[in-house]
């Protein structure tokens, strides 16, 4: 089923996609002419596939649950913000705060993201095939951020228990973020995330891992299973 945002109202399109009949076999959708509109595919909760054919604005695929959303273009601020589950795949670049505060699911960005990628992430897996801007993984609590390119200033500032894997250069580390020894378990996580993003040929040995030095917050080993 196709929507055209030049004709259909964004509210009607989102309303349709947010209220899919559980018994319907019609589970594949295309949105044409997104033209940088905000909140496209926000709040989807069913197992459907949506392709946004063009550039999207702010908070695209925000709060997603279960849906597989592909954007054939760039996205604005806060793509997949507060996502719970499902997959969001951006074929172009993402603006700031990609995957912010998200609890789960997978966000794949083929290009670069600007600043604050994965800010306050709470369990999402983010794979960026390009580079990320400054303050990425700021206060990141849980989940994995994989960066195939470089990172800007203050990577992982005030990070909690999220993991950052990066194959390029880090301009600078933020407060309380340090390089960690990669364990076999970490390598498995990284490999599965790379495979999931179609990067089967990437050598995991080229990646370094960063995490929290645990000096800035009151880390208690008894709570480790919570992260």
């Amino acid at each position: 089923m196709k929507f055209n945002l030049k004709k259909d109202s964004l509210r009607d399109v989102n309303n349709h996609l947010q209220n899919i009949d559980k018994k319907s076999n019609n589970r594949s959708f295309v949105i044409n002419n997104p033209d940088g509109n905000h909140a496209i595919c926000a709040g989807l909760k069913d197992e459907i596939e949506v392709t946004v054919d063009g550039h999207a604005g702010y908070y695209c695929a925000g709060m997603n649950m279960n849906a597989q959303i592909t954007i054939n273009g760039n996205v604005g601020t806060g793509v997949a913000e507060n996502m719970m589950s499902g997959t969001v795949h951006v074929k172009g670049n993402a603006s700031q705060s990609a995957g912010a505060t998200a609890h789960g699911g997978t966000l794949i960005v083929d290009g670069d993201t600007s600043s604050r990628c994965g800010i306050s992430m709470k369990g999402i897996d983010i794979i960026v095939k390009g580079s990320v801007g400054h303050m990425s993984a700021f206060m990141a609590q849980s989940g994995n951020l994989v960066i195939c390119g470089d990172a800007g200033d203050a990577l992982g500032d005030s990070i909690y228990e999220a993991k950052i894997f990066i194959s390029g250069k880090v301009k600078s580390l933020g407060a309380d973020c340090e390089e960690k020894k990669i364990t076999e378990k970490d390598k498995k996580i990284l490999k599965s995330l790379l495979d999931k993003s179609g990067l089967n040929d990437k050598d995991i040995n080229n990646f370094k891992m960063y995490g929290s030095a645990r000096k800035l917050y009151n880390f208690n080993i008894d709570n480790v299973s919570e992260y």
Partner: protein
Amino acid sequence: MCGIVGIYLKNKKLNKDLGKLLTGMMNNMATRGPDSAGFAIYSPEKKNRYKYSVCFSETNAKEIKSQIIKKIKDAKIKVIADHLIIETALAPVKVLDMIKKFKNLSLVGYGNSIEIFKQVGNPKDVVKNFNLEKFSGTHAIGHTRMATESAITTDGSHPYSTGKDECLVHNGSLSNHNNLRRTLKKRGIEIRSQNDTEVAAGYISNGLLNKKSLKETLIDGLKDLDGFYTFISGTKSGMAIVRDEIACKPAVVAETKDYVAIASEFQAMAHLPNVNKAKIFEPDPGLVYSWGK
């Protein structure tokens, strides 16, 4: 919030459509700044001819025109809504003082190339009032305002112009503008409003007066201007954009072989020709990008 837009045409064939392209950009940014709007249009300069953009109030166009002609004999005057464009061979040293003496006139900007218009109201109405669609030119800069630092008046609207053929639009707010205003005034820069952006415009004028390029001045500004900003600044030869190093205020650039467009959000440029084939990027924090001759 505020919306800022700019377009620089590389292909002269598009010059006649400049106003139309900017209208779409301003309309699509109306949601970011619904209380006032303004724009600056640059067209090829006429040697030894100056254009003074002024806003009139509490009078009518006919009356004020006849009063101006008495003082500036060779003036050609164009009336567009509550603005006049006064074209004359008289140089700014004389005309700027004359304009000050008219109680009903306030200067918006002047130069050999620039025309500036700004007004309180929804941007969609403002561009209609000034008939922006009909304008042609080489490059243009626009602003849609959501007021923060000063009152909702024409004086508080952007673009700000504090020097010949200069203009500045701003998304953000500055925190050291009062101190900087005093310093710049001492150096002879005229700043007319209480607005923070006008101080930044004055800062740029001061740099240009000291023979620095626009790019050099904006680089200096990264350490002297304290606050949040994305600036688009224009001169008669082109335009530049810079974001502060924290880069909370957004910007997107789309470049094709025909034009360079800048906007707060992509939706401001979704209507531009072949934009889907454009090179689209976000300007990096603390870097100055410029285009022009």
